[in-house]
């Protein structure tokens, strides 16, 4: 059996292990192995949360190896920072980061197999080729399988440099390859963190403060402790952990647990946030993120000024698998198992908490039942670690859906004010954006388009610090900023009397010929997707639906979308979304389409239906009965197109999401004359009122209607 570390394939000598040894060691380290029967085992180091990395990483290795894909076995690697780099799922960065490393790993092994065959046949390696797991001598027609060559190949010197395939020779990359876990998923195999059960394992749930800005005042656990099956009630930090052996017994005991809370910080409600936004937009001291030219003069000299504000609520990540983690803190070491996007951070946090070296801690990465950024946080693995340490026992901590929705780390709420100065010819000569965020970090992306395309530009932010915890939510910041900005640019195009697509193209052309300040996006790629989606959607020529356009650059990739809206019962319905994506090389066409379609459904669903509001520091939505997610009847038709430009992959887990809200809102504007200025869209009058007249005759201004007709759209 031939094995070597794939990320350091150039440097490390191959390690030959026997079949038994290989079987035992594979789950622990970073080997690409070829068994004598030709089975190729590839470990995938990054956490799989639905981005299909467990399939696409091995595809890249197998491509350069020229392996027979049907003989490839794929395994999820455990955390191994000595063998792997960046075992993280986040930022749409796995494939862009590992692309060359993975190709090198496959190509190195292929080189060694060819050398072994050349030696065996006593011919020059130049004469040999490979295909589907065989080394072939095209002159003689001789062929040897990788399995037969594995042992000899393992003795070949590891090449310092290897030649990678020309992309025209790709057999796997770019094809639609099925998810390697399909059968396990469709038959209910225990793949997820919540499915971890160990001999002697305790189970626990934690009662956390229900409101942000509160802490425990007193705990009366007597009744809970007396409940059947309850082993202990443990108070640590601001947590009350109920420990037992089965979930339902713990859930029941939780109901009789008496915890009093007291104020420990600001207690905020959504109404307070609305005021904070308005106040800080006017009087806040801003941080200037980018300033080009002379904005003041541009606005003073403007023939027309367009000004608009947009707001988004907090959102819960709500992965279908709630937070959970297994920890077993023993005197001699620690075992952590669970769904995390950041296994290395889970380990370093545990080491700090316990005061032990990291090499005493192992982290097994289960499949993640979704992440969306929530599992970039280590709060839930830390709780399990700490609780196991207190209990001196193996324990799995499970969050209920309510715990997840009430427990923080949300997409931050933000309000933006945009202003544009137009000259007499409708050219945008000035642009201002002030973003006010609640624990948002920087709610703008100051170097994104239209920066670089406007001579006089000011991007600034004001931050409000809140006890409500926030975190990265799929396509952080841009998941909302893109909608606000692309809607605003639509408003500006409208005010300038220009076609929205032509308006953007003219700006991009201007950024190319006369750039204003630094340009940190690829103008040609942005133009490319804009033109492609306009062509595919029949922009400006199509009869029937009302079309809205949006284009956005995020996470190194470019996606343009056109949404089509029709009016049904006098309400807008999104019928179709066209997407043009430039993510560089598409690794797995099936997985890539999933990311685009899923990203659009995700972007549409949250723009249309979801919001997390607060009353006295507590979320008003606690489960899916009141927190509405998109469902099957709500989905539009989606058509995806990819730009084929041969650029190395630039990431696709997130970039398809940001443009959707803007495209849809712009289409709704076309259909109704109403510009939606906040999410969720279904809270807007345009979805609530019964319109007696045709959309085109409706004035953009809100029409007062009798109360009885202002029915809220009911969450399903």
């Amino acid at each position, binding site marked *: 059996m031939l094995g070597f570390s794939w990320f350091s394939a150039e440097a490390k000598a191959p390690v030959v292990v026997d079949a038994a040894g290989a079987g035992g060691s594979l789950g622990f380290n970073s080997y690409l192995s070829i068994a004598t029967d030709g089975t190729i085992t590839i470990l995938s180091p990054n956490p799989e949360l639905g981005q299909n990395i467990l399939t696409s990483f091995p595809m890249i290795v197998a491509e350069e190896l020229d392996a027979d894909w049907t003989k490839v076995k794929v395994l999820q690697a455990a955390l191994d920072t000595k063998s792997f780099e960046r075992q993280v799922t986040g930022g749409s960065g796995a494939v862009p980061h590992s692309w060359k490393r993975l190709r090198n790993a496959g190509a190195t092994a292929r080189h060694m197999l060819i050398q072994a065959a050349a030696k065996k046949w006593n011919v020059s390696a130049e004469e040999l080729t490979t295909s589907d797991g065989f080394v072939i001598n095209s002159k003689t027609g001789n062929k040897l399988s990788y399995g037969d060559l594995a042992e000899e190949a393992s003795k070949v010197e590891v090449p310092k440099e290897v030649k990678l395939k020309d992309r025209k020779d790709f057999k796997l990359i770019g094809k639609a390859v099925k998810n390697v876990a399909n*059968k396990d998923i*469709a038959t209910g195999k225990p793949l997820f963190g919540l499915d971890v059960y160990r001999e002697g394992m305790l189970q626990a749930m934690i009662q956390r403060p229900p409101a942000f800005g509160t802490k425990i005042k007193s705990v009366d656990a007597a009744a809970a402790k007396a409940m059947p099956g309850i082993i202990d009630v443990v108070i640590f930090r601001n947590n009350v952990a109920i420990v037992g052996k089965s979930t339902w017994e713990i859930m029941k005991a939780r109901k009789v647990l008496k915890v009093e809370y007291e104020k420990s910080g600001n207690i905020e409600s959504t109404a307070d946030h609305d005021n904070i936004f308005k106040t800080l937009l006017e009087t806040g001291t801003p941080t200037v993120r980018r300033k080009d030219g002379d904005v003041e003069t541009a606005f003073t000299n403007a023939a027309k000024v367009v000004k608009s504000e947009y707001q988004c609520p907090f959102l819960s990540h709500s992965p279908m698998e709630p937070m959970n983690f297994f920890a077993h803190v023993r005197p001699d070491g620690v075992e952590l198992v669970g769904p995390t996007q950041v296994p290395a951070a889970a380990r370093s946090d545990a080491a700090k908490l316990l005061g032990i070296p990291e090499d005493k801690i192992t982290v097994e990465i289960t499949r993640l039942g*979704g992440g969306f950024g929530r599992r970039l946080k280590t709060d839930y693995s830390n709780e399990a670690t700490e609780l196991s340490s207190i209990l001196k026992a193996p324990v799995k901590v499970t969050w209920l859906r309510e715990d997840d929705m009430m427990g923080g780390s949300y997409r931050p709420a933000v309000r933006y004010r945009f202003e544009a100065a137009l000259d007499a010819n409708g050219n945008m000569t000035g642009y201002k954006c002030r973003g006010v965020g609640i624990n948002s970090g920087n709610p703008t992306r100051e170097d994104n388009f239209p920066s670089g395309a406007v001579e006089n530009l000011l991007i600034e932010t004001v931050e409000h610090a809140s006890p409500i915890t926030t975190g990265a939510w799929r396509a952080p910041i841009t998941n909302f900023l893109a909608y606000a900005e692309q809607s605003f640019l639509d408003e500006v195009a409208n005010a300038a009397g220009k076609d929205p697509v032509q308006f953007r193209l003219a700006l991009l052309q201007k950024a190319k010929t006369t750039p204003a300040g630094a340009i940190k996006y690829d103008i040609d790629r942005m133009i490319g997707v804009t033109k492609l989606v306009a062509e595919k959607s029949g922009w400006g020529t199509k009869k029937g639906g009302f079309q809205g356009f949006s284009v956005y650059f995020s996470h190194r990739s470019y996606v343009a979308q056109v949404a089509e809206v029709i009016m049904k019962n006098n309400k807008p319905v999104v019928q179709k979304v066209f997407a043009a994506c430039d993510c560089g090389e598409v690794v797995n066409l099936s997985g890539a389409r999933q990311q685009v379609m899923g990203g659009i459904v995700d972007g549409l669903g949250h723009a249309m239906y979801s919001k997390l509001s607060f009353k006295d520091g507590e979320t008003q939505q606690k489960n899916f009965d009141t927190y509405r997610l998109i469902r099957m009847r709500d989905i539009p038709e989606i058509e995806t197109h990819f730009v084929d430009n041969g650029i190395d992959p630039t990431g696709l887990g997130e970039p398809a999401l940001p443009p959707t809200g803007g495209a849809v809102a712009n289409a709704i504007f076309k259909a109704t004359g109403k510009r939606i200025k906040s999410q969720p869209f279904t809270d807007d009058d345009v979805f609530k009122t019964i319109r007696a007249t045709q959309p085109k005759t409706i004035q953009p201004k809100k029409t007062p209607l009798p109360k009885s007709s202002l029915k809220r759209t009911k969450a399903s």
Partner: protein
Amino acid sequence: MAKYKLQVNGKNLEADVAEDTPLLWVLRDHLGLVGTKYGCGIAQCGACTVHLNGAAVRSCTLPVSAIGSSKITTIEGLSENGDHPLQLAWDEVDVPQCGYCQAGQIMTAAALLKQNPHPTTDEIAGTMHGNICRCGAYHRIREAVKLASTKI
């Protein structure tokens, strides 16, 4: 606590649990059948869907004491070798993303096809509307149900 005799996937199993214990937790914590998932606990997301005498039910809100002699089928027992037309279609159409909701999706679809072997697209969406897929794999779920309906 009481002993409940349950017929699960054609086997007679026993669980010693409180009468109000939802079937979901009996399956997961006591019978080692973890293919059925917890998603919301209030019958809103469909991740916990199993069959009770062939009909789709939400196991997270079904107390074990209400089951009696009804036959329970979980994702593990939907087919002998993972070859139910829906399971095959799920691979053929390459449906799963994170995969967490898919057992519930398949069980909901299986009950639908049993009752209505050739549903229209609207009928599929109408039934599957009760199951949330947070990854947004709805297009392929719909397509896979349609494909399976041609093979039944």
